[in-house]
């Protein structure tokens, strides 16, 4: 029997020891009339060989188009060593490291992860992970509400340059606690939020403000200026970041601090984001992990697990889960969050990824993304009918406006083997036929040229068909 080691003989012996006649007897406390019938809707079991063949077929029934999609999930190169080590049984099949002495592998690794993540974000403290970037944003907001003793408003400013699906997720999660998320519109020229717009939305008492860098459009926000203003107004700053880009962009722990007054409160108070770019494959959307960092002062408001370094009976260094009094298994209804299982294995991969890449590896990768995206944008915007939506600096994603229906263009590109970007028309109808394109270090110049050529052809074909249907129309009219 698959995965069941019992022989008939053993079963007989075990039943005898228990003192029952059959396995069925062990279920005699369950009311008989409620017992389940055979589960017809579940297919019969298959051998591994059969399932393997099925899964290979299904896996191939997904596109292999060249990926220029980003919008929160990014295709980066992952060194082979990363997942080969991560899926070693000792990491893969261990539980949460509650028995510290038997879990030093996982515990030390998480401590190293926390160290790397604080180094990358320039924040003081990192936890051991949240579910993903979107839910980490929600927890960051809850944390800010708990932490900001100077504010009683439960109002959070959220620019519309924050990933729309993150805003929706945050809403779902903080909603039950009467927290209000106030939208701040962006500047149509730059694709970023301005201090003026923020000020306009923040009449009265505001608890915190969310700032995404690079923002959903790939544009770079004026993080220093906004952070300083927020701190001057007792508003906590929640940075939402792409951690890979923090290898070259100013990290949240260093935002602001430019005015006399703000120097002491320099840096975002909380930083969150999705760890996916650091070693997690696209994998249809997950598992990724949410990163969550904060200033030292907020550590007791932090949700989730935290690993600390300590000593053993002999005074030797060792690692344990710490500050557990924040967590649900101790504090129950008064916990900082209900989170229990997190995304440990992905953090394992991410830690190994960062160790292998080093700061320089991350920097060169981020810079390559930037350069490649610039090249793509240059080539695409040289095509008639394609225009950059915003002036200013974008990182490795850019909004392009098309003189043809975005959906039609994207599906034309797909037919040519190009996953051309994210259609913005639902989330940002004001941008018209706009798409968000993304280029990582994985895309070669050849790939970029292929995209540009495909775009040219698709736009021409659409123009031609419009023309011919126009012509047909006018022919009819005649």
């Amino acid at each position, binding site marked *: 029997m698959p995965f069941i080691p019992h022989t008939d003989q053993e079963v007989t012996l075990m039943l005898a020891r228990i003192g029952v006649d059959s396995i069925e007897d062990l279920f005699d406390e369950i009311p008989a009339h409620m017992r389940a019938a055979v589960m017809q809707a579940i297919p019969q079991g298959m051998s591994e060989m059969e399932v393997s063949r099925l899964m290979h077929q299904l896996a191939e029934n997904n596109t292999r188009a060249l990926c220029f999609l980003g919008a929160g*999930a990014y295709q980066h190169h992952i060194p082979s060593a990363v997942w080969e080590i991560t899926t070693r049984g000792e990491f893969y099949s261990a539980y949460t490291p509650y028995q510290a002495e038997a879990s030093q592998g996982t515990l030390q690794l998480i401590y190293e992860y926390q160290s790397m993540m604080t180094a990358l974000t320039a924040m003081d403290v*990192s936890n051991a992970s949240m579910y993903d970037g979107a839910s980490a944003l929600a927890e960051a907001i809850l944390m800010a509400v708990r932490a900001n003793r100077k504010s009683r408003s439960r109002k959070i400013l959220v620019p519309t340059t924050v990933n729309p699906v993150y805003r929706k997720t945050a809403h779902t999660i903080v909603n039950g606690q009467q927290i209000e998320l106030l939208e701040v519109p962006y500047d149509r020229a730059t694709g970023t939020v301005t201090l003026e717009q923020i000020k306009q939305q923040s009449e009265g008492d505001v608890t915190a403000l969310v700032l995404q860098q690079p923002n959903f459009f790939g544009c770079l926000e004026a993080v220093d200026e906004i952070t300083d203003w927020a701190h001057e107004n007792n508003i906590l700053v929640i940075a939402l970041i792409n951690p890979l880009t923090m290898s070259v962009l100013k990290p949240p722990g260093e935002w602001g601090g430019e005015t006399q007054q703000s120097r002491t409160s320099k840096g975002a108070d909380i930083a969150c984001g999705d760890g996916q770019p650091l070693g997690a494959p696209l994998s249809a959307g997950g598992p990724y992990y949410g990163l969550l960092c904060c200033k030292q002062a907020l550590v007791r408001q932090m949700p989730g697990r935290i690993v600390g370094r300590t000593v053993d009976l002999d005074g030797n260094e060792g690692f344990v889960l710490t500050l557990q009094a924040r967590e649900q298994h101790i504090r129950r209804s008064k916990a900082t969050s209900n989170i229990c299982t997190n995304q440990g294995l992905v953090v394992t991969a991410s830690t190994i990824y960062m160790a292998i890449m080093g700061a320089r590896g991350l920097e060169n990768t981020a810079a390559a993304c930037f350069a490649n995206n610039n090249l793509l944008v240059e080539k695409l915007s040289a095509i008639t009918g394609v225009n950059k939506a915003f002036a200013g600096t974008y990182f490795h994603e850019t909004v392009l406006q098309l003189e043809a229906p975005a959906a039609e263009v994207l599906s034309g590109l797909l037919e040519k083997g190009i996953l051309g970007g994210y259609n913005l028309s639902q989330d940002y109808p004001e941008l018209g036929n706009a798409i968000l394109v993304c280029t990582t270090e994985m895309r070669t110049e050849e790939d970029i040229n292929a995209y540009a050529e495909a775009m040219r052809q698709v736009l021409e074909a659409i123009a031609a068909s419009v023309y011919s249907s126009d012509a047909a129309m006018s022919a009819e009219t005649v």
Partner: protein
Amino acid sequence: MLIFEHSSPGRKGAPQAPAEKASLTAIPEKLLRRQSAALPEVSELQAVRHYTRLSQKNFSIDTQFYPLGSCTMKYNPRACNTLAMLPGFLNLHPLTPDLQSQGFLVCMYELQSMLCEATGMADFSLAPMAGAQGEFAGVAMIKAYHSSRGDTERREILVPDAAHGTNPATAVMCGFQVTEIPTLDNGDVDIVALEQAVGPQTAGLMLTNPSTLGVFERNIETIAKIVHQAGGLLYYDGANLNAILGKIRPGDMGFDVIHSNLHKTFSTPHGGGGPGSGAVGVAGRLKPFLPLPMVTKEDNGNYRYLTAQDCPQSIGRLSAFMGNPGVLLRAYVYMRLLGREGMVRVAEYATLNANYMMAEAKRRGFTLAIDDRRASHEFIITLKNEAHEYHVSAMDFAKRLLDLGYHAPTTYFPLLVPECLLIEPTETEAREALDGFLDALEQIRHEAETSPELLHAAPQTLPVKRLDEVRAAKQLDLAYNS
């Protein structure tokens, strides 16, 4: 030694990233980082060696018997890992149009359907990323349901005192107050107390069945009636579904909403703390409120994601994409390997192993927390006598077990039982492992009698001796060089 301590400035031994750094001068300088992040600088070999050796410091199912109660540490078939990591899945961008993701979507759709069948619920969403998020979704749906009926005064969630900590924590996160319901000595919910507690303020009751005491709640029908009659809904914490899979279905017991820890019953790995999946299922009346995304099959045979347009009453999204697809794929492969006949076997042999161990533990003179009942997939030993006689704690037993090559059972949970070990062998363990563990327990009791210092000083054979948790919490050291 930390990976940082292997670092040497300027070292770079990996052929991974582009060798050169492209220019970033187009970015305003004030937006750029001034100093490189202080990440370790090691060669690929150093990283591989460091993390390979670290891994060896873990106990895991692949290396030890791991009877951690309530955690269902069973074998995670390697095939599930291999097949979920096929390039066709790993390279799939979550925003790929549905028509280009059919191979993935069909897995998700069929997983939803199989979970419905396995639990007796009307519909399932795979969005929640762990049990606790499943609970969140469930309780949020309870709230949305009452709201949708204008029933806005139901501000309270009932939770038995034996419940897992996530239950009360979740209720609070959803904006509810929590009232605890006591448990009787025999492990059943105190019906009288429950009857007194319910009322027009009751939004619902969260119940784990079999409970964390390792017994099946025999009055489940009565409980369901009491809660439903008060206008509340019944929430099933599915962490212990492994015990009854194919034997009785939560839907048939009267539950309105459940979550299932796929990382327990459906054998996706725990990964040193996650990722998991807490898929949620509902009875018909809660269907409109399920979290997004979900996958539906269209008349033309194509699969597609349901959107907010399709489900205007949905509680919404819980994550940026589709929960944890890699975990969901592993659960899908697992269910296809086992099939309908394998599902039932899970509960049968998990229960056989637990009852065998319980009978043997009793025969060997250990005190059971609940003596005269069937164990479900797990059972509890209380060491209060040993603690009293030999001045050793359940924690000492646990640490000594590590020395003998067994992962310790869950200790001090459920909170109701003093000095307890919650033991869950799972169905994938052979009798040799169970007997070996019982022998070890006996040996330790003997040691407690004759040389208790062995227990106090345990573990001795692991990479570290007993660790100072108090110091860790007082002298916070949460990052290298911080």
